[in-house]
């Protein structure tokens, strides 16, 4: 399950960015369609990996980017959660294009509480 490795890499990265002593409340990541990541599986791994750390209990927000579909017959372009879809014009094989980004885009922390 690559979700586990990704959760581990993410935890190390978040810890490196969080100000000392801060409690991490939330993480936001952007994931391209090509990655084939399961947000629920990733969240389960995130909870396991962050247990007992300053990130424990934080929410992991996954912005799963859709596929861009382009129909070569009629030129229509739209986005879709699945890669293989038919076009309204009748073309059953428009080309799917997906991104492979996997980026940490924000960390929300509670800082300086005493």
């Amino acid at each position, binding site marked *: 399950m*690559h979700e586990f490795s990704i959760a581990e*890499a993410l935890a190390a990265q978040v810890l490196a960015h969080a100000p000392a002593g801060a409690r991490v409340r939330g993480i936001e*990541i952007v994931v391209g369609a090509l990655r*084939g990541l399961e947000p629920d599986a990733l969240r389960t791994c995130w909870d396991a990996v962050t247990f007992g750390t300053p990130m424990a209990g934080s929410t992991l927000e996954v912005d799963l980017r859709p596929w861009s579909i382009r129909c070569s017959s009629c030129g229509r372009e739209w986005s879709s959660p699945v890669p293989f879809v038919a076009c309204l014009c009748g073309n059953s094989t428009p080309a799917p294009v997906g991104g492979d980004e*996997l*980026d940490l*885009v924000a960390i929300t922390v509670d800082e*300086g509480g*005493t």
Partner: protein
Amino acid sequence: MSEPARTLRLPMVERVLEANDEIADETRDELARRGIFAIDLIGAPGSGKTALLEATLQLLKGRRRPAVLVGDLATRRDGDRLARWCDQVVQISTGEGCHLEANQVRDALRQVDLEGVDLLFIENVGNLICPVGFDLGQTAKVGMFSLTEGDDKAAKHPYLVTAADLLLLNKIDLAPHLSFDRVGFEADVRLLNPRVPMLEVSATSGQGLERWIAWIDRASVARASAARGQALG
């Protein structure tokens, strides 16, 4: 006096696998410096990755000087199979890991005498999804599908299809016995990746392997001259 906690949102843009990618880039530089063409072979368990490498090592004997890294969950069997044909084989036991990562490849390469090696095969852990996103420092990614897996596997694994520099369709010797739709399979591949070369091969009968060997030789030469161009430019 106690102070209330302040909630701060810190925006940033950083690749999650940056640490892995940095190690991979170091490996890629090192291999390029030594003129080693490195292939990351990715395919499902049982698709024939080890069988292909066994046949390939025999065909390359006396012509190229290969080394092999083999990722496997638990056993040393693949490594032992390959060691019959190549004296530079390192087995990487990944335990639970469903893919190789750059640090494992870097560490395994320390056990190889790279002096005189000009070709590196990395048999990734059998899996069509997880290995694709982890850069190892390879020069080329080769995706392997096989007839026994069914003709829907390219469509179900778009990341491998789009990321591959070459796709192999193995076990082509079984075509008469299976109802694998090769035209439909290729059409799915073309939708995702219009340009990737595809070769039909059989690791066990040897069918199509001369074209696979020719691809390796051509790609190594193209890579080496690109690297020279870069060094000059």
